[in-house]
């Protein structure tokens, strides 16, 4: 069944495009160190060359500043030999060039490298949050749908309440209070505001499945509850849970970018959101530096589109009416 | 004026699927007299619904009529421009659908759904249309105050009666009913059928009644058509068909309904399953399941309907008496 599902996913043209697109970004994230020409927060290149024998005392032999962006310092050390250290500073706010395909930012960091490294952070946060939200809502949905009774009442009520409290403002307020920095708090904030909608969808699916005869058969044969839930119901929820995973991941990537853009994330980390934050803070727009703020947005949209495409196919699998005839 | 209401001539129709074209109706011909009640029986997938939708020109986008003619009062519906079909539909021929539950729009009141059909075809005032609706509801024993009700406020049987009222509101001459009682309980089913009979006697329309329940059809039809795998395999007066089936499939179907009052005996139904219409078996399509099948039955083309005497038609080239062994029911006389 899972094999069938994956086969359908690959044979559908839309989802194949989506999967390829997503695969591309996953590869970029995985091989960021190989793809990116520089480290994301480097603003200079240092080269050290060996010149001569060690000397008795440490001294700087010569200092030369041939240009604004280059220092050449020759010094002797007592233990080793004589070195020449050349420091090439990256230009600030440079236009795209051969060395910097997407130019540099206000601090002289290479924007292309930042974009590549940012893929890793943004994708990780998105997929981790997606996983977290899916796991959380699947658990809640199974609990509430299968057990019913008071558990169901409480979870359903909470879901309905959280569903109408607007997510982004809540996220902003919570993020503003959080003093911890790092990836985990962001995943938690995005996850804890993202569970209600998938929970509601998944719960109604559990209810449908619970009423199906094969579940009743299973109970009348004497299966344990855990078997009924995990072997009878759960396998039938794979496609809808996958759809929710992709939808939640997309929401998380957008949410993360938004929080970072407002400055509520960790601005020292390099992600698509923080690139945009610094672009905005440094007036990239009004200096015409489109290479600074366009690429991250396009990347976000491409990842989002890949999720949407994959979900189109999942929808078509689970809803025959949408199928092209 | 001719006595023939509808003549179906060598109709071929089907629909495209991902796996290929399914010819759900294959070379079907019959004719229907004015005021006649024709029952068409067949199992799921035999093409009976496709036939109904083809006659109404309501086939969905992926379905089409390949060839053949549908002569309604002498005019062929197949090549007819859509505008003319629109003018005919509901005024001259109407349809009652399988599930009244889904055939009524949940957000419009019964009154609106009855009268909008009137307004679409006649220029009458709102009051006149409403008067017509009240009259029709009375015919199916529904109180006029139900005009303001919504579908969910009615029971299943009432909804189906509303559908009948809706189909008859413009006094059509032909009423096609596609499994109109399948989803209903026996008692409700019986009362609906009695109602249709009564209305037919009063209003004089013809009926094509499509169902899988042969036991029901035998009682109410003038003529019976039996469909199997897209083909009409037997056609003739209902009583004659019941007493002396000439096609082995008809016999098999008759043998699938235990008797309520007759002597109790073992019945065998039919072995096997209906063929896949994407790749129907060679020769007679029933041959793989037929208890009388001979090697020749599985060769060549599919036998067509041929007269078998007494105004009856059968698609089996071997008359009952000449078959390999005597039928269980065919000979003995069951009653």
């Amino acid at each position, binding site marked *: 069944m899972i094999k069938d599902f994956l086969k359908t996913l690959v044979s559908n043209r839309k989802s194949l495009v989506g999967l390829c697109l997503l695969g591309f970004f996953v590869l970029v994230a995985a091989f960021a160190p190989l793809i990116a020409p520089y480290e994301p927060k480097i603003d200079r290149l240092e080269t050290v060359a060996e010149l001569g024998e060690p000397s008795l005392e440490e001294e700087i032999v010569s200092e030369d500043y041939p240009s604004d962006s280059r220092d050449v310092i020759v010094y002797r050390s007592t233990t080793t030999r004589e070195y020449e250290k050349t420091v090439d500073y990256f230009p600030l706010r440079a236009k795209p060039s051969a060395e910097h395909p997407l130019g540099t930012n206000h601090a002289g960091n290479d924007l292309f490298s930042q974009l590549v490294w940012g893929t890793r952070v943004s994708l990780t946060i998105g997929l981790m949050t997606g996983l977290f939200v899916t796991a959380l809502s699947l658990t809640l949905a199974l609990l509430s749908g299968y057990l019913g009774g008071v558990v169901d009442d409480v979870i359903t009520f909470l879901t*309905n*309440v959280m*569903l*109408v*409290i*607007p*997510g*982004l*403002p*809540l996220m902003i*307020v*919570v993020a*503003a*209070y*959080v*003093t*911890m920095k790092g990836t985990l708090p962001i995943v938690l904030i995005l996850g804890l505001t993202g569970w209600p909608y998938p929970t509601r969808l998944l719960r109604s699916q559990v209810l449908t499945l619970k009423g199906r005869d094969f579940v009743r058969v299973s109970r009348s044969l004497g299966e344990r509850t855990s078997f009924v839930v995990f072997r009878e119901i759960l396998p039938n929820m794979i496609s809808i849970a996958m759809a929710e995973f992709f939808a939640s991941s*997309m929401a998380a990537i957008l949410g993360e*970018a*938004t929080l970072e*853009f*407002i*400055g509520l994330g960790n601005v020292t980390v390099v992600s698509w959101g923080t690139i*945009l934050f610094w672009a*905005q803070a440094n007036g990239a*727009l*009004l200096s*015409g530096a*489109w290479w600074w*703020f*366009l690429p*991250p*947005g396009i990347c*976000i*949209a*491409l990842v*989002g*589109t890949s999720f*949407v*495409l994959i979900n*189109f196919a999942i929808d078509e699998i689970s*809803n025959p009416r949408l199928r092209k005839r | 004026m001719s006595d023939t209401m509808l003549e179906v001539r060598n109709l071929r129709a089907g629909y495209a699927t991902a796996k290929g074209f399914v010819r759900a109706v294959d070379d079907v011909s019959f004719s229907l007299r004015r005021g006649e009640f024709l029952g068409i029986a067949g199992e799921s997938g035999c093409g009976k619904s496709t036939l109904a939708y083809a006659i109404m020109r309501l086939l969905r986008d992926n379905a089409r009529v390949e060839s053949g003619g549908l002569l309604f009062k002498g005019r062929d519906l197949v090549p007819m421009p859509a505008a003319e079909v*629109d*003018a005919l*539909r*509901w*005024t001259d021929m109407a349809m009652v*659908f399988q599930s009244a539950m*889904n055939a009524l*729009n*949940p*957000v*419009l*009141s019964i009154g609106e759904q009855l009268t*909008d059909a009137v307004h*679409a075809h006649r220029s009458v005032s709102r009051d006149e249309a409403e008067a017509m609706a009240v009259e029709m509801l009375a015919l199916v024993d529904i109180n006029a105050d139900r005009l303001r009700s*919504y579908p*969910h*406020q009615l029971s299943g049987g009432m909804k189906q009666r509303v559908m009948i009222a*809706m189909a008859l509101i413009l006094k059509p001459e032909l009423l096609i009913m596609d499994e109109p009682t399948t989803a209903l309980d026996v008692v409700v089913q019986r009362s609906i059928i009695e109602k249709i009979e009564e209305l037919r006697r009063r209003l004089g329309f013809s009926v094509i009644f499509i169902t899988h329940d042969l036991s029901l059809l035998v009682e109410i039809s003038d003529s019976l058509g039996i469909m199997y795998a897209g083909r009409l395999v037997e056609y003739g007066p209902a009583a004659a068909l019941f007493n002396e089936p000439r096609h082995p499939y008809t016999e098999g179907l008759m043998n699938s309904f235990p008797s309520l009052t007759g002597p109790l005996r073992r019945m065998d139904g039919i072995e096997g399953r209906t063929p896949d219409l994407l790749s129907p078996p060679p020769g007679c399509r029933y041959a793989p399941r037929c208890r009388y099948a001979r090697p020749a039955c599985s060769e060549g083309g599919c036998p067509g309907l041929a007269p078998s005497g007494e105004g009856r038609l059968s698609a089996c080239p071997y008359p009952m008496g000449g078959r390999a062994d005597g039928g269980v029911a065919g000979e003995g006389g069951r009653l």
Partner: protein
Amino acid sequence: MKYFLRKLGLLAFTLFVSVSLNFFLPRMMPGDPARALLDKMENLQPEQLDTIRAAFGLDTDDPVIVQYGRYLRNTLRGDLGTSFSRFPTPVSEVMRVALPWSIGLMGLCTIISFSLGTLIGIAAAWRRETKLASATVGFFSFVRSFPYFWLGLVFIYFFAFRLRAFPIGGAYSVDAARGGAAWWLSVLRHGALPAATIVVSSLGAWILTMRNNMINVLAEDYITVAMAKGLPIRRIKSMYAAKNAILPSVTGFAMSLGFVIGGGLVTEMVFAYPGIGYMLYQAVNAKDYPLMQAIFLFIAVAVLIANFAADVAVMILDPRVRDGAK
């Protein structure tokens, strides 16, 4: 009626939860943000310090439950505390200035986007075999993936910076006399880009929802019946197809509305549009917690009320809901 009361109950309870969240959030956070803030801001004036203390309940030794009671009472009276970044203006006063801009911008955009998206969705489903329909659907599912704020940036770059067709930010021109024709014109010109951002970003969701609903409805038997009855296409499309298809859309208003409002907030931030979104941005940057909380509360209330209105609309449109049959 039963339905109405149930929804009213849910509204009241959700309001209560939002208000309580507002009170408990800062008290639940690990690492005590209040102390951290106080330590960081040593150069604040004593009155401002008091404001912060009051906001976090550090000015009193009362147990939390008593503070909570006082907070609920104050909130009910409309007393939301004092902003400390704009000390000593009460929060409610700050919000009063910002509100009309936001309500004008986002309210209008939501209505435009919902109606336009619904209409396009209907058309896209009705002619779903055409190239135009699939192109529209494809285009908007792509656009939907852009973050609102980024689309805003792009609009500023192209239309304000490059083409200089629109101002880059703000809500009105300071040169024109307030209330005059020129001023209103400037309001329109300033509002155009933010409005376009919100509408373009949110349109896709409405189109796709409506299209899918429509496609589901078009497969229903009652559509076939309507065709067979020979009803005018316009009536089939509106009273048979769209009226049924729009019901889940209106119910789904809840989720989407929160999303659109959220997007609207960020759009305001990008355009420095003086509504509550921009104010929230300033409050966040200044760590003005009372103002931030009040804004959150206000947005929550607005969304809740809009949702309630949507529920009432469903009740009017759907006889089954009216009878409590669904």
